[in-house]
């Protein structure tokens, strides 16, 4: 097991990239802790699979270095990195039994058979497949096959990290939850560094300690699920995470006040003059509806999702959503959206501004 360092890393699929737009992965510097559970979250084509393949050694980055612990593995082939990977579609060796599948990586490394047997039995217990050890792997269900893939990775004691590339895509919904829980407990128990690629926020938020949100080839935020929810660093994080996502409205900000279309919104802190496109962001959970004050909105519809209701409204064509907690009454004359000042985020050119950072930016 090892800490993973990405140093000045970038990747382009063009041999001679002409500028930033040619890079599938923009320059990044990150250190991923040993034993952490990370989720790489982003929409399709944001570069998350490229990053995963660079870590696993299936692809060589066009710039920068990858370090496992203190060893530079940038040019090391996959086999030398001691990583395990679980793919989107189950990969098992069809002609082998479950036992032979699990033993395969050890057999290839020339381990002796007593050790292999002990290790395979141990892993089978971990993934709960002792009963099916001597069955042919080909006839098993998709989730069992994914467990075999995972087991093949964990069977090696020297494994540095286990990578998951959207591993639950082909799994039935009720099994998804079970597998995710099992993964989580395996992580807690054995402490492998795990990197989990997904475009499903539920998967990411329930699996990971740290979620790495990627957008357009860039890591826009790396943080705990709480941080992503409470203080999204980028508007993409705001609307990608959360259901519904963050409300974003074009605003003018001066001091402790934001103005949206002539309406004044009080802020919790003072911001200096901001340049670029300035947006006010607020999560629907912190929007309350009343008969006066705040922003006058037009109510479009109300969705009852069981535990709460979502009020879909609009201000001058821009969507403004509010979450109405269970039991809270609602009447048609409640057409004013009030934003809780402490939950408001101010974004300039899509990036979150803290009052201090904004000060820094205005000076620079």
């Amino acid at each position, binding site marked *: 097991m090892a800490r993973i360092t990405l140093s000045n890393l970038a990747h382009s699929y063009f041999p001679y990239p002409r500028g930033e737009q040619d890079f599938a992965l923009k320059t990044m510097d990150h250190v991923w802790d040993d034993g952490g559970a990370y989720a790489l979250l982003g929409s399709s084509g944001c570069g998350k699979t490229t990053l995963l393949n660079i870590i*696993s050694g*299936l692809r060589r980055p066009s710039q920068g270095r990858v370090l496992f612990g203190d060893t530079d593995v940038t040019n090391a*082939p*996959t*086999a030398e990195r001691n*990583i*395990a*990977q679980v*793919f*989107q*579609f189950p*990969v098992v*060796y*069809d*002609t*082998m039994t479950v036992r032979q599948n699990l033993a*395969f*990586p050890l057999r*290839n*490394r020339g381990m002796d058979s007593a050790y292999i047997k002990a290790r395979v039995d141990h892993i089978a217990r971990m993934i709960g497949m002792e009963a099916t050890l001597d069955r042919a792997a*080909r*006839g098993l269900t998709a989730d069992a096959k994914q467990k075999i*893939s995972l087991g*093949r*990775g964990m069977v090696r004691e020297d494994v540095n990290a286990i990578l998951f590339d959207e591993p639950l895509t082909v799994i039935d919904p009720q099994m998804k939850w079970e597998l995710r829980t099992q993964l989580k407990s395996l992580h807690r128990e054995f402490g492998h560094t795990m990197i989990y690629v997904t475009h499903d926020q539920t998967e990411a938020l329930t699996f990971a300690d740290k979620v790495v949100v990627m957008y357009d080839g860039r890591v826009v935020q790396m943080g705990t699920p709480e941080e992503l929810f409470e203080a999204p660093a980028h508007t993409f994080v705001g609307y990608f995470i959360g259901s519904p996502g963050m409300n974003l409205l074009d605003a003018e900000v001066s001091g402790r006040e934001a103005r949206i279309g002539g309406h004044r919104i009080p802020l919790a802190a003072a911001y200096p003059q901001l340049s670029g496109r300035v947006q006010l962001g607020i999560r629907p959970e912190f929007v309350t509806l009343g008969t006066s004050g705040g922003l006058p909105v037009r109510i479009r519809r109300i969705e009852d999702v069981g535990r709460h209701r979502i009020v879909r409204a609009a201000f001058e064509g821009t969507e403004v959503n509010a979450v109405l907690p269970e039991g809270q009454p609602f009447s048609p004359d409640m057409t004013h959206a009030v934003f809780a000042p402490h939950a408001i985020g101010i974004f300039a050119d899509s990036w979150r501004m803290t009052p201090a950072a904004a000060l820094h930016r205005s000076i620079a």
Partner: protein
Amino acid sequence: MDKTQNNKAWFLVLPVLVLVAFSAVIPLMTVVNYSVNDTFGDNQFFWAGFEWFEEVLHSERMHAALWRQLLFSAIILAIEVPLGIAVALTMPKRGIWASTCLVLVALPLLIPFNVVGTIWQVFARIDIGLMGATLAALGIDFNIGQSSLDAWIIVVGMDVWHWTSLVVLLSYAGLQSIPEAYYQAGRIDQASRWAVFRYIELPKMKGVLLIAVLLRFMDSFMIYTEPFVVTGGGPGSATTFLSIDLVKMAIGQFDLGPAAAFSIMYFLVILLVSWVFYTVMTNLDKEEEFE
């Protein structure tokens, strides 16, 4: 429910029935007729029952032809299948060279059978053939008109040249259908090249290889034109395979009765192999669905 019973639609099948009758059923019945009768021409038939069948079944000449036939099929399968897989494995997977290779490999398949026969006949001639003349100049005695072994070498070589491409194309298609993730998993598990072939590629090629084996078996079992053009079944009857012998018997010797009986049995064998082929394929599909 008041439903009008009207089965006149069956008459729509009539045209096809007539067509099939003329193209298949009537010719086949003629053969059946010949096989159970003796005739001296003039459409005069004498009932012979299963005599011809018994004669053919006990004929040593037939046994010899059958053994030659089986040996030929076994040899070409033993060469073409491994060779075809090996060639497919070395072909590039994508890019301009992949297409180039595919076209080049497919070329022999496009050449008519008798042309292939002629090419190899000329190729082996000791006076003007590239191979025959070269070997003669080197002082090696190679003559397909005199040596049975030489004739076999040429006939087998010709079949390998003509049909290995089919195995290559099928194997190539099988290889292309393997998702990249399998190879990546193999690399992560540190599988050797042999292990990748044995546990990833070969199992995934199983279906297409089965098709290849059965197609090549059937085709080689029915082979006629190419060896007929190259060796005419000789020297002696060294390369007289079943169909060559059949033609000799029917048209050369005008033994219509035994030839007809032989044809029917030949046909039944082919039918049996087709049935096995069909059964194995459908079972394989079922297994795949089960996955």
